[in-house]
């Protein structure tokens, strides 16, 4: 039977990994994800998880250790935050190229300079394009659930790709919330044991990762790209099964909150969506038809779902929680993707972006209200006058 507990995001991620019966775990401390590993260390010490718990000598090593473990046929789990995520950058592409479906739990943290513990999504967003599946949760419950869903999707034989399951540092990682912890028998029904593709073996020897020529590189890229055409289908199946077995109500790709008749809408990933929902309610009370959409997966990007869910709104504000200095919109990473997703519509929303929640700053309800005003003005002006607004620092 499922049990209800108060768990932080870190504890929820660890519970998720425990329920997934991970076999090799590799740790390295960095705030704020550290407690995920603290929890797993306790479970291993207490005999509640039959896994090898390896103290990596850094994040690069963490990812390398789980690569080896997955190549040998074990379900492997690791995680990191901030500069730890970027330190391991070299190993991300070999991981997806070798089709090792490990999971990495990320509690987001700003990149240096200089040290800032606050949550910002730039860390994991920097790994887009490396062939990993990337998803963001907005509650400890969703963190636990995503851990299981991501393993199920990543280990599907049509997919075989690594996954990053991300949560906002502090806001989710350190603040406890109610979590329904499912029973292991239910989890086993949802998540079959990991079956590696031609693992390192003594009886059936194989070579993993030989060198290739330039004319073999292109087909490998194409094959990895083709896999991402199939991932959405697998996510849909997995989410449907998950909703059925655990009695949840997740949209596979995009949480839609009062978007059906919205004039203005926010698009936002991660924890700040919780504040945003409340502001949408408040705006509705004031007579502003507001709505919110929250992508659960950033890779694969839900292009069609965004166009379908938000094509009709008049003004769309993308709340960026990561930076992309000097990019096309001089703001973050999401707005260019959102604009591209809407481009083919005959009529499309005016789109701007709001740089907020950077460096771990709280996004205050007042700030969402301010953004709503900007969006309303855009409708009146029939144009977006800026690509991006640095909230709190507007000129």
């Amino acid at each position, binding site marked *: 039977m499922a049990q209800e507990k108060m768990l932080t995001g870190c504890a929820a991620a660890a519970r998720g990994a425990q329920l997934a019966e991970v076999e090799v775990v590799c740790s390295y401390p960095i705030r704020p994800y550290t407690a995920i590993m603290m929890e797993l260390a306790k479970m291993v010490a207490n005999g509640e998880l039959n896994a090898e718990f390896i103290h990596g000598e850094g994040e690069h090593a963490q990812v390398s250790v789980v690569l080896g473990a997955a190549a040998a046929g074990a379900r492997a789990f690791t995680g990191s935050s901030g500069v730890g995520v970027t330190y391991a950058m070299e190993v991300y592409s070999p991981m997806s190229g070798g089709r090792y479906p490990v999971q990495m739990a990320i509690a987001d943290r700003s990149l240096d300079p200089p040290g800032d513990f606050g949550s910002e999504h730039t860390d994991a967003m920097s790994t887009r394009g490396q062939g990993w599946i990337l998803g963001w949760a907005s509650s400890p419950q969703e963190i636990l659930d995503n851990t299981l869903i991501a393993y199920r999707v990543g280990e599907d034989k049509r997919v075989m790709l690594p996954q990053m399951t991300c949560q906002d540092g502090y806001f989710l990682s350190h603040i406890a919330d109610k979590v329904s912890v499912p029973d292991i028998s239910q989890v086993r029904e949802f998540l079959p044991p990991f079956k590696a593709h031609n693992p390192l073996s003594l009886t059936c*020897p194989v070579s993993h990762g030989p060198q290739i020529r330039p004319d073999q590189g292109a087909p490998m890229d194409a094959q990895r790209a083709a896999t991402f055409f199939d991932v959405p289908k697998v996510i849909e199946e997995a989410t449907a099964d998950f909703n059925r077995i655990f009695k949840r109500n997740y949209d596979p790709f995009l949480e839609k909150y009062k978007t059906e008749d919205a004039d203005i809408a926010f698009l936002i990933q991660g924890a700040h969506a919780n504040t945003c929902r409340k502001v949408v309610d408040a705006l509705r009370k004031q007579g502003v038809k507001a709505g919110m959409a929250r992508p659960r997966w950033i890779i694969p990007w839900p292009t069609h779902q965004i166009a379908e869910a938000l094509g009709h709104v008049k003004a769309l504000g993308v709340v960026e929680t990561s930076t992309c200095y000097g990019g096309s919109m001089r703001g973050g990473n999401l707005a260019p993707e959102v604009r591209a997703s809407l481009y083919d519509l005959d009529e499309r929303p005016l789109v701007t972006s709001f740089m907020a929640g950077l460096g771990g700053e709280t996004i205050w309800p007042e700030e969402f209200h301010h953004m709503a005003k900007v969006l309303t003005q855009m409708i009146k002006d029939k144009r977006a006058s800026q690509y991006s607004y640095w909230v709190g620092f507007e000129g």
Partner: protein
Amino acid sequence: MAKKLPEYGSVNVPKDREVPFGAITPAPVKTQDLFMTSNWRVVRPVIDHEKCTRCLTCYMACPDACWVYNEKDDKMDWIAGFCKGCQICIHDCPVNAISAVPELDFEDGVVRLEKPF
């Protein structure tokens, strides 16, 4: 929504260009026949079976495993297809039983590969 959105497209890798999933390949058994290296050879090692003492120095000295002890005939067999002609065996033979002969003196051993590898 007025018109149909573009699809994500499709990728079709032709059969002859397919790369194994995850670039994982089966291990070779006795020799890697996709990679013959006899065409590296300028000089062929020629053994004098009378002089040879079966000390196995050549066998332990060859980076390409091209000297094999043939138990049945009690002699050393040379693997022509992979010998690169490095001459370590010739240099290290304690009884000078192996000599260097220009590969071009032999009419056999032509492989004429299309690519160097």
